[in-house]
């Protein structure tokens, strides 16, 4: 067992943090206030290779192994203060591009991945519906066979990147009541300019630099070559790829945890009250020590997921544990950061309040904390509800 990053991984990490600090996030407050997508930041990330690090080079990606990629995305989260931009990248990559990379035909990979990697297409993942969130087997969007293709009808809700996306991975019901739930769903690649597809914006509390929307499919005609994987394989395709979302999407959150922890330590050493640095008060220093412990544990869990994936192993339970721990831990860290910074932390002055709003959704998207606990318990052999 070796806990040390290789010299190459360490150098990449430092390079990414430097890139993110120098080129991203300068207008984070503006994008948050106006709920706008950072087009120039997106382009800078595309040019730097961020949008394709884990995708094979032959499809326009960087070809990084999963562990190295996870370290790079952690560094991106640490260096980039625009959490909305990073979240848009996470969704684009881990909820859209990797589905095509893992399950697409050679033709689908060659058609879509280069444009996703170079940023000319923005990707999104359309699973949740107005009445179906965690209970994906109950989704009601249908893709009905029609000649050589399908007709897609239904509404998806809370779709990150939705109003800005050029390409969706959409889950829909292809099987009837006579088909087992696990075999009734299929996935499709659907361009945003497909006739019958409309999007509307959904305003939200945080991560406002990632646009979220409701997507309606009204008689969208799809070719068979737009189906991802076999018909009826949507559930297993989702299950096998969800590790990316639960594991890799939270790499950047570990980076945010690191940024906030360092920021609090620096502030507590500098800020003086009652004639001494506030960090000399145990109520403050212990809070920061707990932040550091959470960071260490989060990082170990993160690297284990990357290590397992780099060896071609499954990391389902580990990814659920990581997602649960990082999202809940980061919420605590962000609230503690606000407390340590006092009134300035609560106002817009330091951007801490934005960080707090941005981390809140982490315990909801990609499967709520309650769902993660149920998955972990279920994988331990405990009875499950569904």
């Amino acid at each position, binding site marked *: 067992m070796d806990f040390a990053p290789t010299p190459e991984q360490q150098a990449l990490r430092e390079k990414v943090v430097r890139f993110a600090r120098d080129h991203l996030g300068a207008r984070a407050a503006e994008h948050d206030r106006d709920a706008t997508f950072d087009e120039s930041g997106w382009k800078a990330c595309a040019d730097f290779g961020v949008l394709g690090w884990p995708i094979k080079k032959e499809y326009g990606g960087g070809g990084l192994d999963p562990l190295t990629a996870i370290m790079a995305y952690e560094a991106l989260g640490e260096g980039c203060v625009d959490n909305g931009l990073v979240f848009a990248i996470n969704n684009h990559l881990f909820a859209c591009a990797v589905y095509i990379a893992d399950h697409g035909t050679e033709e689908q990979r060659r058609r879509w991945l280069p444009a996703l990697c170079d940023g000319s297409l923005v990707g999104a993942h359309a699973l949740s519906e107005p009445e179906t969130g965690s209970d994906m087997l109950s989704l009601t969007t249908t893709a009905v066979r029609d000649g050589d293709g399908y007709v897609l009808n239904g509404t998806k809700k809370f779709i990150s990147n939705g109003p800005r996306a050029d390409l969706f991975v959409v889950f829909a019901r292809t099987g009837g009541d006579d088909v087992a739930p696990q075999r009734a769903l299929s996935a499709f690649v659907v361009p945003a300019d497909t006739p019958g597809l409309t999007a509307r914006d959904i305003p939200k509390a945080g991560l406002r630099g990632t646009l979220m929307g409701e997507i309606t499919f009204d008689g969208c005609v799809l070719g068979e070559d737009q189906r991802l994987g076999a018909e009826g394989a949507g559930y*297993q395709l989702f299950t096998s790829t969800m590790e990316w979302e639960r594991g890799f999407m939270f790499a950047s959150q570990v980076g945010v945890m690191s940024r906030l922890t360092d920021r609090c330590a620096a502030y507590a050493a500098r800020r003086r009250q009652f004639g001494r640095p506030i960090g000399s008060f145990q109520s403050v220093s212990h809070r920061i020590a707990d932040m550091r412990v959470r960071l260490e544990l989060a990082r170990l869990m993160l690297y284990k997921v990357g290590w397992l994936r780099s060896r*071609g*192993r*499954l990391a*389902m339970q580990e990814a659920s544990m990581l997602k649960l721990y990082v999202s809940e831990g980061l919420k605590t860290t962000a609230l503690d950061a606000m407390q340590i910074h006092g009134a300035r932390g609560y106002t817009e002055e330091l951007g801490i309040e934005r960080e707090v709003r941005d981390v809140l959704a982490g315990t909801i998207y990609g499967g709520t904390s309650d769902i993660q606990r149920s998955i972990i318990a279920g994988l331990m*052999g405990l009875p*499950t509800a569904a």
Partner: protein
Amino acid sequence: MTDDIAKTVRSFIGEHVQDGEPGDDHDIFATGSVSSLFAVQLVMWVERTFGIAVHPTDLDIENFRTVNHVVRFVESRRAAAAPA
């Protein structure tokens, strides 16, 4: 060896299928008699119980849909891992 594997698999699946212990060719995913998480649970149990590595590319429901399919999967992985 095959009988031992089958007995172990049959027993585990029987504990989780609502209708009780299924026949060796019964498709456990065809009738909705297992939870949505069971496929993953079964994969992890196979890894742990038989000491084999299941890779993301193995996550095909075809490998796990009956007792006999699971037995064949375990045997194929063991054969692949055995020294030549």
